[in-house]
């Protein structure tokens, strides 16, 4: 992020952005999504905050949604763009369904589709302002991938967006293994979400965890993490900082 000094001509009534039809910057945004593969499928976590700049504007935004029968999509970034993407995907799944041939789009196909949509929009200089995480299981094959605003995409055993890349992935790299049970997977995600809650100012203590396996998917009810704020450094944060309040 940077401060851009925009010089406006004095006789111009409208700002330089007034006739723009593009997303020049995001309005309502969601913060990190964290996801990992575990023994039977994929686990994904995201909090429910929707920030308007640095104002916490919405507190019940569902940022993880089921896509078709085999996939789960998590999004950070502009919430309205995410809803637009959900509209595209609904249509995609519907039109695929209308073939009525017993085939269905798996997570790999959906991820590839998202990759093309995101890259296509950046080519038009009109990006969808999101980082997306797509997880799913089809025919015993676990899949976990991510796409950024400008189309950068990859698969991995664990992924995270935004702050999660800084704070959660080091934890995941240290503790993740192929045979994580459901319980251990949830514990690991909660550990990541707790670190994010403490250190990411736009993270809130109301989150959901989503699970997808061969059997189907469930998105948990919103819940909170236990926190501990009684450390003396929290109670008196400026002690020892000379010249501070």
């Amino acid at each position, binding site marked *: *992020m*940077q*401060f*851009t*000094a*925009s010089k406006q001509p004095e006789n111009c009534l409208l700002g330089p952005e007034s006739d723009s039809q593009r997303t*020049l*910057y*995001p309005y309502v945004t969601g913060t990190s999504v964290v996801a990992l593969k575990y023994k039977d499928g994929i686990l994904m976590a995201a909090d429910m905050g929707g920030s308007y*700049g640095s104002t916490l504007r919405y507190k019940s935004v569902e940022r993880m949604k089921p896509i078709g029968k085999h996939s789960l999509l998590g999004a950070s970034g502009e919430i309205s763009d995410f809803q637009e993407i959900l509209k595209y995907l609904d249509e995609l799944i519907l039109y695929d369904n209308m073939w009525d041939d017993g085939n269905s789009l798996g997570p790999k196909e959906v991820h590839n589709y998202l*990759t093309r949509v995101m*890259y296509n929009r*950046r*080519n038009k*200089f009109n*990006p969808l*302002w999101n980082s997306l995480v797509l997880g799913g299981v089809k025919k015993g094959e676990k899949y976990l991938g991510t796409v*950024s*605003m*400008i*189309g*950068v*995409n*990859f*698969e*991995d055993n664990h992924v995270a967006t935004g702050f999660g*890349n*800084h704070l959660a992935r080091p934890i995941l790299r240290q503790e993740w293994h192929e045979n994580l049970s459901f319980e251990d997977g949830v514990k690991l995600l909660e550990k990541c979400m707790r670190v994010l809650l403490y250190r990411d100012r736009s993270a809130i203590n109301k989150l959901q965890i989503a699970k997808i396996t061969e059997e189907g998917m469930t998105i948990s009810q919103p819940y909170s993490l236990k926190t501990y704020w009684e450390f003396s450094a929290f109670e008196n944060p400026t002690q020892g900082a000379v010249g501070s309040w």
Partner: protein
Amino acid sequence: MTKQQANWSPYDNNGGSCVAIAGADYCVIAADTRMSTGYNILTRDYSKICKLADKCVMASSGFQADVRALQKQLAARHLIYQHQHNKQMSCPAMAQLLSNTLYYKRFFPYYSFNVLGGLDNEGKGCVFTYDAVGSYEKVGYSSQGSGSTLIMPFLDNQLKSPSPLLLPAQDAVTPLVEAEAIDLVKTVFASASERDIYTGDKLELVIINAAGIRREYMELRKD
């Protein structure tokens, strides 16, 4: 106070290094598997090497989304070529196609730095090296990407290729045998990953010779 804006750029640099060496009857193409953005490592296992035809392989670093679009474009064009000519494209033909494809986007370039390696129609190793807008040159060996400033002079020193100014033109292929070239590639990557933060994790080598295509891997520094 001016508005605090989250600005965006259509480009990113995802790092990575690519090397290709041509010999009399083989070609080695190699790249690391790290993908980064800024000081973050996005993934430690992303292949930058793409097989374009039976005897033609491309290694690309730069902006991953552009690289992927370029690979798809070339794959589609190669499929059309196969339908029209009922054969695989030769490496020199693919080299020209890659150049044209890059130049086609001269004014909104693919931010990708490529080396193309393979065997020519006589079965001799060949390497083509590019810039982002399609300038290209046939060489005996080359390096592209974030670690190229460390790797290229090392290759120059070890391979001593004949000057392109010599008349009559001399063959650019390296005098090494296959095993020596593979060893050299492993060494330059181990060295580059000491200093270049965008090179590391794992090395992927593709070796093309008369017998066919073969892949090898070697672990690199992960820090």
